């Protein structure tokens, strides 16, 4: 099986879906001729032409709005937000229109769009190029939010998102783009949306996280295994709606749960995970549910020292995991 990077898995999924279904098209800032600022759409403009790979003006609300309109006319648009930080002008379109239309029209209309956006810090990007925005959308029924961690999951989940009949937000960790490489099959496959995945089996503590933090947690788990601490790691993959069964199962397996997100701690996706566990697993808990997250400051700082302070890294995770194991 070929080993490719996280971003190559994005490109491959889009290319294969555009080849498979002519209704699929992509629109966004610099996605065409430049092939995207991160090169996620490299080669697509040449292969599919300017009618299916559309450069847009710097108007995120238009990217979302046009995509929604096209979707309701039967197309399957993929809108790219150059950075997740820039999605804010499109929130009204995504939340008030895309997420609501099926419910509002009593199933007469639906909206099969995918909004892709690179998120996350640790790339020295400062306030407007480092944010995690999933929590803003994670209490909007009608939306799905997918945040894969591995190239395999990226390809399978992006294909599932494109084929989904309802709006899907697809957040890609920009630091993972070229850092994370993995085996990805050449052929067509789909990873179901809404299913969490056990990335490591263990007995002593459970770590539930998503995105780049999955890799950090795996590294920490590897280290702790040498000390005899066995870690069970669950990758949420879809952060909204959450896979409650898998979360409960993972939590009850060890009774000690660490939840990790790179986002600000308060009201984050893992806060909901914590609520699910405390509602359902009280008599299986052996320790207070532990959260490791970014501090509650407005956004990722630019100064490298401060960025390091803000960002989750394997050392911070290892420390938290050990603390939980020792409890």
């Amino acid at each position, binding site marked *: 099986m070929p080993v490719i990077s996280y971003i190559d898995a994005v490109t491959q999924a889009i290319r294969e879906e555009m080849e498979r279904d002519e209704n699929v098209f992509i629109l966004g800032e610099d996605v065409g001729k430049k092939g995207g600022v991160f090169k996620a759409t490299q080669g697509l403009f040449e292969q599919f032409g300017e009618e299916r790979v559309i450069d847009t003006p710097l108007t995120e609300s238009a990217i979302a709005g046009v995509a929604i309109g096209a979707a309701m006319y039967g197309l399957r648009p993929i809108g790219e937000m150059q950075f997740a930080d820039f999605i804010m002008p499109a929130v009204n379109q995504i939340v008030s229109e895309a997420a609501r239309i099926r419910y509002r029209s009593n199933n007469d209309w639906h909206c099969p769009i995918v909004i892709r956006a690179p998120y996350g810090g640790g790339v020295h990007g400062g306030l407007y190029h480092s944010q995690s925005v999933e929590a803003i959308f994670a209490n909007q029924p009608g939306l799905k939010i997918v945040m894969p961690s591995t190239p395999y999951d990226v390809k399978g989940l992006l294909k599932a998102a494109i084929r989904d009949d309802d709006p899907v937000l697809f957040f890609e960790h920009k630091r993972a783009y070229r850092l994370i490489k993995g085996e990805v099959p050449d052929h067509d496959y789909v990873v179901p949306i809404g299913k969490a995945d056990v990335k490591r089996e263990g007995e002593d503590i459970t770590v539930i996280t998503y995105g780049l933090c999955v890799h950090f947690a795996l590294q920490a788990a590897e280290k702790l295994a040498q000390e005899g601490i066995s870690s069970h790691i669950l990758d949420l993959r879809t952060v909204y709606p959450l896979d409650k069964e898998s979360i409960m199962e993972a939590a009850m397996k060890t009774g000690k749960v660490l939840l990790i997100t790179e986002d600000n701690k308060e009201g984050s996706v893992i806060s909901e995970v914590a609520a699910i566990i405390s509602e359902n697993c009280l008599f299986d808990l052996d320790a207070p549910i532990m959260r490791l997250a970014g501090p509650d400051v407005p956004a990722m700082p630019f100064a490298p020292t401060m960025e390091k302070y803000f960002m989750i890294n394997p050392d911070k995770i290892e420390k938290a995991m050990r603390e939980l194991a*020792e409890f």
Partner: protein
Amino acid sequence: MSVEKILMPQLGESVTEGTINQWLVSVGTKVNKYDPLAEIITDKVTAEVPSSFTGIIKEIIAQEGETITVGEIICTIETEENSTEVEQMEVTDLQENSDTSEKEIRTPQKQRYSPAVLRLSQEHDIDLSKITGTGRGGRITRKDVLNYIANNKSTDIEQETTTHQENSIQQLSQVNEKDSLAKQKTKSLPLHNPTSGDIEIPVSGIRRAIATNMKKSKQEIPHAWMMVEVDVTNLVQYRDSIKNEFLQKEGFKLTYFPFFVKAVAQALKEFPQLNSMWAGEKIIQKKDINLSIAVADEDALYTPVLKHADEKTIKGIAREISELTQKVRTGKLSPDDLQGGTFTVNNTGSFGSVQSMGVINYPQAAILQVESIVKRPVVMENGMIAVRDKVNLCLSLDHRVLDGLICGKFLKRVKEILENMSQENTNIY
């Protein structure tokens, strides 16, 4: 002088590695701060790496064409500044800080149980005080309990089989008995979980004392049992004829019971074997005849002692029983009232019983139950059928001390005395 490291810089937001395209310096080159050192190619850009220091290139680590992860060393520079010392100091500072943070006071957590630990301990009937906690502050973790369950399952089964074997060959040592008792106790607990609507009554001191004595008696004394039927028609007639006069004269009721007590006391004088107790190596025959009288109030049973019963008249016995009963009802019994009993007479007839198996009042050797007096058709010696007042006397005996023969003789004697009680030959005074 110190050696500084030059690291692969991050040349863009998503860039995690870079390839050395060309070195612009070589080992020994003198460079100033910000002088370009090498050309680097990434996915996005080609850029020059500037020097962060002024000094002489000491070693070139990354070769041209090599791809290096961001943060890895590409070359080293020998500088004239002594910055390493500063760095070292910083490091020590940091270590000191982390030391103090780890010195935080850790309170013992041995008695703090998590929901998972409590649930497991209840489901498996585990005494948590037996588990050594490996968590912080000695806290018992879920894993500690799981390990304990896994380790004890096998030993539990072993113990049970041995106990069974020993039982079958009747060689239950005391230690094992204790063990199996404890086991029974823990095992029966789940059956005792009260369901809603059940009332849980805490065991009072007197209830506990009764329970302990009864259990001791039943477990230690091999009880045997026998019963005789007594014709007390004459006694009933006698007592009925004087009871009103007695009440007027003495101020308390004359019941049948003092007659029985008197008869028993007299018979015990003749059969001292029953007035004795088992003492392991020997049997002690008591000189004094002190009769314990079972007296019940609403929720407890007392056995106050009628001392020297053989020396007392029926009236004297009647008064003393009346006084002791009064003391029980008003809770005024003194410890002295309860001590020194050598044989027990139990008036079970007062609550309508016609037959009962008494539990011996430990450490005595026997207990006599006086049942209800009832009218029965009886075939008389001359072949006639008559209505007679009959009473059952039930005797529980310690078979270690007594045998059927002697007890039969004793009961026969009591029967004789009672059947001969009448106006003509019995004086209550």
